[in-house]
């Protein structure tokens, strides 16, 4: 079973919501573009029923090149973290498949 992609999502919008193929494709593009854009303006995204995309500022910290052992600082950066909501956590917890 392959991973879910944007094309699969567009297909679902075409079949179930009745958007035409072009509208369906644009809708999926817009969805992820707008979420990314919000995060790119340092604004958290909250999708109720799914989860929150939060932003965290990390300070510079010492690091090491694992190949050479050379010490190099890991620069200060901003990162995205995803916090799944209660509803998603509950749904996923029940999955009893193989360890992944």
């Amino acid at each position, binding site marked *: *079973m392959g*991973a*879910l*992609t*944007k094309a*699969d*999502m567009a297909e*679902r*919008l075409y079949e*179930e*919501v009745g*958007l035409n193929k072009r*509208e*369906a494709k*644009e*809708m*999926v593009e*817009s*969805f*992820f573009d*707008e*979420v*990314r854009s*919000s*995060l*790119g*303006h*340092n*604004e*958290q*995204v*909250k*999708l*109720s*029923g*799914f*989860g929150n*995309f939060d*932003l965290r*500022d990390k300070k510079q910290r010492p690091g090491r090149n694992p190949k050479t052992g050379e010490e190099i600082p890991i620069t*200060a*950066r*901003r*990162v*995205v*973290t*995803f916090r*799944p909501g209660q*509803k*998603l*956590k509950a*749904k*996923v*917890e*029940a*999955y009893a*498949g*193989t*360890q*992944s």
Partner: protein
Amino acid sequence: MTKSELVEIIASKQTQLSVKDVELAVKTIIDLMSQTLSQGQRIEIRGFGSFSLHYRAPRAGRNPKTGESVQLTAKHVPHFKPGKELRDQVNDSLKAGY
């Protein structure tokens, strides 16, 4: 940004669909993503990131109120790994002074 704000923004940037249509489309996308993960399947969105499940082994836990020990069963938790484009865009916002 909340789900309803996301709906408003998408609706305002196009002319073909009503807010209702966009609302249903956004809900359908989110439901499909939840459903996919709950079946143990991955989600891969190029430029955005991927969602998968991480396994948590069974462990002995404790009821924080009573101190009684309880056995917690194995479970899966959702995990998101941001893609390069998203990582870069977010990190650039720091450099740009947001």
